[in-house]
């Protein structure tokens, strides 16, 4: 400080002794060097920030890219065209398998030995006879006629068509026999083996055979679970928020509730699963694997999210609205129900959608309450055994078959699509109804 003052004094006092002006510290070589170094540090710092953002974006692209690359092909499935003669005697015997095989052998008149035919049998999915049976059940008039049907191929053939197996590898390393490859190639060449849109993926339940497995059951399970979650957590959450924000006196008790809710929002989700297991299954004896229990657990989990979002939305409504309503004689409850809540609704809705999106993607607590079971049937009620989409993804991810990896990725794509839609809806809602008082 004193140094500066002395300099300043020296600067303003004309000194007859020195003819040259006093050398400014801002023009020295050392200063320029320091400044360069500081600016370089500035650039480096800025670059580091940009790099961090770029890295995050890169990982996002990588993650989505790898999943799209793995999963896109699952939306197609390989089917084999067969001319099936629906012989009444065989239909009466329900020997659909035999009918299909006979039709398949017609593509290969040169194959007559048992070993060769066994190879051919393996081209068809083990679910193909059921497809035929369902077709006949739907239209009994078909019996006795010859029909052109496209039935599902085995998952290995499906993968072969999609390029999952390398033809240039020797048989032992490829994991698929040369005979099957040759048979599939013959069918491909004649146009009897082709890919079509994979409806199985969307309609079927789980299966041990990849080509018959779908996420239909999991989607229904997710919907049922989400329904329970929404029916419980939305009214309770909004009511709790209204009470805490509008009516609760400020005292230790409400402080405790507030701290408690904030903490609850940060409790690991698996703990909620333990709660569900001990209380809902152990104490109340509710059924395992049921969407009802899953929905209850999810409701408890999303409750803090909804309460916090609703409180923020309620807080944003200016006090003048309340005062005006009270001033013309509305009761406190009428004030809230008729004026404050409708104005806060967009914000509450946004928070609710985000909470639901979170519940839709949650897996861990549902593992605890047994929603991780192998369930073929599509659930019909809240107490049926069911699984949900994320858990289905978890189970498929464990399966070694290449075709399951593909389906897992496809299921993830569908899940992500739904989540992005939900979050997008929340963002759009916020944009439309955003209001500054």
């Amino acid at each position: 400080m004193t140094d500066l003052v002395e300099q300043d004094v020296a600067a303003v006092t004309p000194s007859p002794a020195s003819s040259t002006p006093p050398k400014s510290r801002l023009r020295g070589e050392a200063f320029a060097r320091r400044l360069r170094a500081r600016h370089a540090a500035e650039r480096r710092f800025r670059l580091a920030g940009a790099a961090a953002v770029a890295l995050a974006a890169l990982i996002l692209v990588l993650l989505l890219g790898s999943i799209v690359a793995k999963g896109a092909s699952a939306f197609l499935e390989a089917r084999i065209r067969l001319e099936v003669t629906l012989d009444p005697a065989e239909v009466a015997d329900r020997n659909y398998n035999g009918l299909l095989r006979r039709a398949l052998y017609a593509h290969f008149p040169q194959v007559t030995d048992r070993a060769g035919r066994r190879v051919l049998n393996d081209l068809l999915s083990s679910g193909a006879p059921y497809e035929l049976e369902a077709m006949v059940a739907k239209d009994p008039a078909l019996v006795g006629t010859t029909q052109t049907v496209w039935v599902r191929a085995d998952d290995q053939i499906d993968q072969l068509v999609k390029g999952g197996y390398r033809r240039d590898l020797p048989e032992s390393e490829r994991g698929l026999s040369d005979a099957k490859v040759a048979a599939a190639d013959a069918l491909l060449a004649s146009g009897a083996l082709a890919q079509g849109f994979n409806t199985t993926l969307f309609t079927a339940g789980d299966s041990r055979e990849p080509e018959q497995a779908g996420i239909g059951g999991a989607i229904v399970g997710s919907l049922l679970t989400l329904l329970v979650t929404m029916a419980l957590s939305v009214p309770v959450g909004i009511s709790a928020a209204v009470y805490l924000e509008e009516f609760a006196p400020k005292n230790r008790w409400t402080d405790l509730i507030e701290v408690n809710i904030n903490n609850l929002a940060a409790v690991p989700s698996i703990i909620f699963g333990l709660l569900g297991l001990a209380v809902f299954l152990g104490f109340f004896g509710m059924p395992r694997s049921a969407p009802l229990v899953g929905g209850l657990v999810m409701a408890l989990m999303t409750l803090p999210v909804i309460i916090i979002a609703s409180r923020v939305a309620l807080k944003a409504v200016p006090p003048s609205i309340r005062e005006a309503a009270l001033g013309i004689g509305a009761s406190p409850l009428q004030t809230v129900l008729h004026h404050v809540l409708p104005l806060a609704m967009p914000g509450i809705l946004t928070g609710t959608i985000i909470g639901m999106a979170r519940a839709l993607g949650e897996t861990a607590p549902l593992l605890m309450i047994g929603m991780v079971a192998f369930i073929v049937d599509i659930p019909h009620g809240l107490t049926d055994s069911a699984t949900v989409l994320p858990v289905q993804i978890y189970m498929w991810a464990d399966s070694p078959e290449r075709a399951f990896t593909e389906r897992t990725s496809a299921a993830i794509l569908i899940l992500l699509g739904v989540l992005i839609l939900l979050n997008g809806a929340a963002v759009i809602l916020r944009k439309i109804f955003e209001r500054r008082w």
Partner: protein
Amino acid sequence: MQLTLLALILALLTVIGFLIGRSRAASSVGGRVAELHSVPSYHGVYVALWAGLPALLLFVAWTASEGWLAMQLVLSALPDRLTTGDGQSVGLLKADILNLAHGIATGREADPLVAEAARRYAAFRDLADWSLLAVVASLAVAGLAWGRHRIGPDLRARPAVERVVRVALVVCSLVAILTTVGIVLSLLFEALRFFTVVSPLDFLFGTHWSPQTAMRADQVGSSGSFGAIPLFAGTLLITVIAMLVAVPVGLMAAIYMSEYAGRGVRTWLKPALEILAGIPTVVYGFFAALTMAPFVRSVGEALGLDVSSESALAAGIVMGVMIIPFVSSLSDDVINAVPQSLRDGSYGLGATKSETIRQVVLPAALPGIVAAVMLAVSRAIGETMIVTMASGLTANMTANPLQAVTTVTTQIATLLVGDQEFDSPKTLSAFGLGLVLFLVTLCLNMVALRVVRTYREKYD
């Protein structure tokens, strides 16, 4: 069946109650509504509440106790030789009765006495369901009649309705408290049962974890070993790796977004980070197991290292990625809360932007950032799916990130997945782990939330 019918009846009676109440209120003053204390619709709600609420409460209480009551009745009729014994055999008996009553095959020949008990149980439940239907429906009708009787010009319907609504609001806000109480009680209760078998000291400080208990007493290794230190070490290792990824990247991203990025860039970056935050953890787990782990392994092998196929490194990196948006959005808030005057003061003294950030903004925001990191750590500790899918199950005590480790959450998930008896120490140990997990994350969250709160108040 009865349940649906009952719900329909109740809903119908409530609606009827509303309509009756409203019209009766108006007719009681000859259509001059202004003479009423409350507007007619409040009278409607008043009657509807009388019709619906007591019946609903009775219904809830009844269904909550019915199964238990029926079981007690049935058990008391059974000879003592079946019902006395340790908790496990009685539990088994109860399960048998329930299964038989619901027509589920138990897989073994049922004791005729048990079969009879099951038949009685089913009959009792059926009877109880129908009588419940009758009782609840008549209670609803009685409530409706009483409410209707009360209606008159002097009835203060609005305050009465509002009292009920306010009580309902309070009850809703108590659900959050009840959840916490439920978590604490269920964890404590089951963990205490676990600690009667395994000493807490052995659990917390033991270094050998192998929860597999044999089915027969004479099998080798019949008593599982429950030393949880390897799990804690594994959790710590993965958390440290995750933080090494998430904190620098997340913090730098937050700084860039709040201090450098223009409005245009920001409007694109924020949603992108939100997408990253909205991706379900099972997707990250899939990514970790099928993309990151092979990648880490092949890189490691190219460098001549011995990498396990389920390395802690892969799981940790992906978990770090998952937490990046969490850290960055929390830090972003904190950095934005630092008053502009501090920055302006620094610029006025000639500091560059980065100097201002490093020497003024970050120190001012430090408590908040520390709290954000603590919340992130608590998140990492509690994360389940990534580690379950991408890290191993073997309880290794190692600080080598290239080896497979297991974590607390992985063990909880694997111990409790599938059908197990509820009483074995193996199953109960999951609750012991859950208790530790809950307490640790609770402490982290409490401290962090408090810091954030006081910090926010400081600059507000």
